[in-house]
């Protein structure tokens, strides 16, 4: 069977569309050709005849490219990537950030856990359990917004887990300056800070602000995709 994706990609490589949108058009059209080909094969046509039959649907690829470009021209200035990726990601990030003080104002404070490390030193960990419990819903919200705007699977997953990615990016830029920050603190604060900047600091901070929230967000995204899959299997017809 031909590689339809590659074939369409070559024929419509000149589409002046956003990269994501171009990929989407390629994927959609190649899926159509693939199904046409399979249908013709199922009718008993030989491979080459089925390929020719599927390809006969497009007489002029350049013309089709122009028509698609003209049809997809946006009246608004927002690119599909903004609608499908950046806006849902921003919403997910803002909701997850503002949920923290909101929950605290409702008296749902973080829980403290104490771990004993080397030399019997005790490390305090604050875990925002209630906040973490809300994150699957935030992840699902991001996934929903992205999908509603026609986002691809990748865009849906990134939109839903974006806060964890953003926290990670922030941490990467902050961690190198932790030592400097500690130096500027007074002695009392430094001892408290020291427990935080100990050997567990990177793991603890990354786990608390990236891995755990990321996992919670991802649970929401996957639950959303799974629910959607179940619903569409009931409602969407296919060959």
């Amino acid at each position: 069977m031909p590689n339809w994706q590659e074939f369409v990609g070559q024929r419509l490589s000149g589409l002046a569309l956003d990269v994501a949108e171009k990929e989407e058009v390629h994927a959609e059209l190649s899926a159509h050709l693939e199904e046409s080909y399979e249908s013709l094969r199922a009718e008993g046509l030989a491979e080459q005849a089925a390929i020719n039959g599927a390809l006969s649907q497009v007489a002029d690829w350049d013309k089709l490219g122009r028509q698609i470009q003209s049809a997809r021209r946006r009246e608004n200035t927002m690119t599909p990537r903004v609608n499908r990726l950046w806006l849902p990601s921003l919403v997910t990030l803002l909701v997850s950030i503002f949920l923290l003080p909101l929950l605290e104002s409702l008296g749902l404070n973080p829980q403290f856990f104490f771990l004993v490390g080397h030399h019997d030193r005790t490390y305090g960990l604050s875990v925002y359990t209630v906040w973490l419990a809300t994150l699957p819903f935030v992840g699902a919200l991001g996934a929903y917004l992205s999908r509603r705007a026609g986002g691809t699977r990748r865009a849906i997953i990134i939109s839903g887990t974006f806060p964890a990615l953003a926290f990670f990016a922030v941490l990467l830029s902050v961690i190198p300056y932790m030592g400097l920050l500690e130096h500027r603190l007074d002695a009392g604060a430094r001892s408290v800070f020291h427990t935080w900047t100990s050997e567990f600091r990177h793991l603890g901070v990354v786990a608390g602000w990236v891995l755990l929230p990321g996992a919670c967000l991802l649970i929401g995204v996957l639950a959303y995709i799974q629910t959607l899959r179940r619903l569409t299997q009931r409602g969407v017809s296919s060959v």
Partner: protein
Amino acid sequence: MIGSGIKRGTAELAVLSVLQDGPLHGYELARRIEQQTDGALRFTLAALYPMLYRMEQQRWIRGSWETSANGRWRRCYRLTPIGKKKLLPLQREWAELFRALQQLTKAAHA
């Protein structure tokens, strides 16, 4: 066989009418229209997608990537509230047109 000019005019109505029954991806949409019109309306890939994209721009339909019944990742189209509102007047307009044409042909034969 219906001529291409009329086909073009009825194409949007056909898409909206078929999507009324539920979401479909492009290939299945074309197949359904062909089946339901006994082959009178046939959409090739080249005719279908520019129209679907235009209708999506007009917000009559909305496309989103979904897993179809056979487990494939497909872009499925569904009617939007705007599309639903558009469908009834379109159906009425076309019904009136065909009624007028029938009257005209009857009068010509009389």
